[in-house]
């Protein structure tokens, strides 16, 4: 089961869970993903130790997709 989580004030919130073999769950996850992007979040997936990637579409094959807020110089 893959998960879409958002880092927020609660620690993190699971926005969607899906299985590639279940089109309905994928569709719901894609909708949740787009909604988060619309709110200004940035989607990240980890790519092994020390690597992460910013993604613009829900990578259905990934186990974990993390939504984060933008960063800025302080």
């Amino acid at each position, binding site marked *: 089961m893959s998960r879409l989580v958002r880092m927020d004030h*609660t*620690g993190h919130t699971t926005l969607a869970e899906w299985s590639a073999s279940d089109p309905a769950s994928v569709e719901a996850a894609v909708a949740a993903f787009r909604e988060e992007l619309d709110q200004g979040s940035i989607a990240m997936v980890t790519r092994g130790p020390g*690597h992460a990637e*910013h993604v613009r579409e829900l990578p259905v094959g990934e186990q974990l997709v993390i939504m984060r807020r933008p*960063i*800025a110089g302080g």
Partner: protein
Amino acid sequence: MAAHAHAAAPAEPLPELAGVYWRPRMTAERLQARGRLWTLTTLAHVVPFVLTAVVMVAISPYALPVAIAALAHAWVIPSLYARRGAIVTRPVRRAADGPERIALGLLGDLVDHDARELHARSGLVPEPGRLGTWLVGESGALLVQGRRVSCWCVRAADPELPSGDRVAHLLLALRADEEGFATVANLAFSGARWRVRRRLPKPRRVALDAVAA
């Protein structure tokens, strides 16, 4: 701590770069140049005061108090700059225990055992990169390159985040695009490691010593 260098070029540059479009993308060469500029600035502060002290004592031994005051300035001014750099590792206000615990769990999934252990001791997560070794905190990061440390002020935009999530935000951005991360962040200080080290509280000194070893 796992030794993993970041990819040569990110598949996707950090989206936050659009907010600092006027800044040239940071590279190892630009970073080195900025380091040299910081060194020159430090010398420009120190040398005149040291010369003043020497000349004053040479003119008259009775000017010794003035010479000592000049030497104190030569010491204190770079020290204040280093303090400004060390402050980037300062923790931000903690959230409630529950969210903090959940956030730490997610952060723990992103790093290996050694990094988790160092974070528990110091609040900083070590992250090897192409520019050097980073120590990522809640509101900034240190980049250790041999005897030089660069201090970067950068944070997640959401002030309600628990501390673990703050670190995770910076860590993910750093891993996605190291040079982009250094472009978005503000360089608060670059200079000798020992200068930054003496301005850090003991737990964070441990982290600096660990990655410098």
